[in-house]
């Protein structure tokens, strides 16, 4: 208890100050006066403003007491109080709690192995391979999606609604809104329920399992050193991994990052180089029979992720991030809890996303009807041709803005008709992954980061994505790479 020695003369002790301040507090704060006094002594800004507002008359005297008290302590008052409290807690625990001698349980052994890079990094790769590639990518994005698309939508929903719409809607143009190529039923509902729903549900299930097993903090501690190089701390793995599910939701989760600088870097990287599950699903489907193109795509995206992060951390002012995180014990997740979490997340996603899907369908319908889209598509044909893609691909890019996955799905259709070779496929996937975030994420960027930053990020990405794709196309072509 050596710190106790620092205590000033008794009339200036913290305890005296608390009492004096308590007597000066005349308003009702719901919390006790003592509690408010202690928070004031710790210089809590919010409570200070509250008291300034509610106890105007005595505020200056309270401030004087705080100033005086601080002078008599070598350490910040919050530190002194924490030490005092700690002693009190220890005293109580000593009487009512018994600890058995520490022993290292099998769980603890596994936990330590997972945090040791020698075993932990291979284990991490295995988790990502099994979880993201096998479970989300193959099971979710292929098996379940194929079943829903071919056995439910193509067989029942689409034919049924086509017949129905033809019968009750007399105008072809209006029929198009519901059952056309980009119609509400044929596109919005089909993509939402047959493609997006299964992929996101499977992803969120995987994420909730990771979360409840206590694995994420171990991942964070393994990756902290690497993330520090790109201006982030290990804590940022949580939004980053979530970004593989829904980058829009992940952008919202960047709130857990303690500094504005980290939040900006994470938002930029999520918008630029982290493909969401919907996109990932379609990209996997596009590249599944072309492992070399898949490798090129993954390599380029990873490289861009690290490069842009590194450069941003060099340019953005602000202090280096600090990392601290509690490592909870490994647990076997409770199934019902995982299910509830997954359900709540999928529900959030749908309530947030479904209206945007519908709007996108309506906007695309209007855009096509009024030929504004033809104009925009023509404008995009220039840059699209410049990166070596057929002009039809510009449609995929434009629609990609309304939903990133629409864009990816547009390419999917193009590929189904064998219009792209391996290099074009890789370049297109890189461009689309990097390209402007979907409209939902665009709005979220602005909501979370403000107009200037949100818009700045989008303009940067627009230019940057095409530049990278342009360079990649030239490199691959001049090396005569065949993918």
């Amino acid at each position: 208890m050596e710190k106790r020695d620092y205590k000033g003369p008794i009339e200036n002790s913290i305890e005296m100050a608390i009492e004096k301040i308590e007597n000066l507090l005349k308003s009702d704060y719901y919390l006790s006066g003592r509690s408010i006094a202690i928070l004031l002594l710790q210089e809590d800004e919010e409570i200070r403003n509250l008291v300034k507002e509610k106890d105007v008359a005595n505020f200056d005297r309270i401030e004087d007491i705080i100033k005086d008290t601080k002078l008599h302590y070598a350490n910040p008052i919050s530190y002194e109080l924490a030490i005092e409290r700690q002693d009190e807690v220890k005293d109580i625990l000593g009487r009512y709690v018994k600890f058995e001698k520490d022993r290292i349980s099998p769980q603890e052994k596994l936990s330590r192995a997972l945090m040791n890079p020698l075993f932990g990094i291979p284990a991490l790769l295995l988790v990502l391979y099994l979880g993201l590639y096998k479970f989300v990518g193959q099971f979710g994005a292929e098996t379940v999606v194929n079943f829903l698309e071919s056995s439910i939508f193509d067989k029942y929903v689409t034919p049924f609604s086509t017949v129905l719409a033809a019968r009750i809607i007399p105008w072809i143009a209006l029929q198009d809104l519901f059952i056309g190529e980009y119609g509400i039923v044929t596109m919005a509902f089909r993509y939402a329920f047959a493609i997006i729903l299964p992929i996101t549900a499977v992803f969120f299930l995987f994420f909730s399992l990771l979360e409840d097993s206590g694995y994420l903090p171990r991942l964070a501690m393994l990756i902290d050193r690497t993330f520090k190089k790109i201006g982030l701390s290990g804590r940022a793995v949580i939004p980053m991994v979530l970004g593989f599910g829904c980058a829009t939701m992940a952008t919202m989760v960047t709130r857990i990052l303690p500094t504005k600088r980290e939040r900006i870097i994470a938002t930029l990287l999520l918008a630029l180089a982290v493909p969401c599950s919907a996109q990932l699903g379609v990209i996997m489907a596009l590249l599944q029979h072309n492992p070399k193109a898949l490798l090129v795509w993954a390599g380029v995206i990873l490289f861009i992720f690290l490069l842009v992060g590194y450069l941003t951390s060099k340019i953005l002012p602000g202090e280096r991030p600090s990392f601290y995180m509690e490592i909870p014990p490994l647990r076997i997740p409770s199934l019902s809890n995982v299910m509830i979490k997954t359900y709540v997340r999928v529900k959030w996603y749908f309530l947030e996303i479904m209206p945007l899907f519908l709007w996108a369908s309506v906007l695309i319908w209007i855009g096509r009807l009024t030929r504004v889209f033809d104009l925009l598509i023509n404008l995009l044909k220039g840059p699209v041709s410049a990166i070596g893609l057929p002009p039809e691909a510009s449609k995929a890019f434009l629609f990609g803005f309304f939903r990133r996955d629409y864009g990816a799905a547009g390419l999917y259709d193009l590929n189904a008709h064998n219009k792209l070779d391996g290099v074009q496929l890789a370049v297109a996937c890189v461009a689309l992954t990097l390209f402007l975030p979907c409209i939902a994420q665009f709005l979220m960027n602005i909501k979370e980061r403000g107009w200037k930053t949100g818009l700045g990020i989008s303009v940067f990405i627009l230019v940057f994505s095409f530049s990278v794709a342009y360079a990649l196309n030239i490199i691959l072509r001049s090396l005569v790479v065949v993918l």
Partner: protein
Amino acid sequence: MSVKKIAIAGNPNVGKSVLFNALTKQYVAVSNYPGTTVEVSRGRMNLEGEEYEVIDTPGMYSLYSITEEERVARRILINERPDIVIHVLDAKNLERMLLLTLQLIEADLNVILVLNIMDEAVKEGISIDASGLEKELKIPVVETVATAGKGIDELKKKIGGYGKKRL
């Protein structure tokens, strides 16, 4: 009859949400706390004919706040004036988490202390004299394993009892 308010408070990752779900059964609303980006869930609970509003507050380590979550949790305590505050903590980390209990008691709130995740604490060889703690702190103390639904009935009893005694 007016609806009584219960706030669930505690560190992050101690099972507050699980406890919230166990008490309320049905989700009522998840919304951003006014002026912030922090989400707060509110639900209803009926206990022996008495209606309660239950608020699941964001994680807090201490009344002295550093993060936005902690500020929101504290604002809920100040502005919503809960009749009962349930402090949930991880029983095996009693040493670090009892600090907040002491702060809540010091703030003159009606605190019920929930020692959650008791199964892990027992596995770690920790034994807690809950009734001794109850007498020392002069507040109700309940041991629970919220994920398995253990101790929830006991907690409800204490909530009801609290309601009759002190409110």
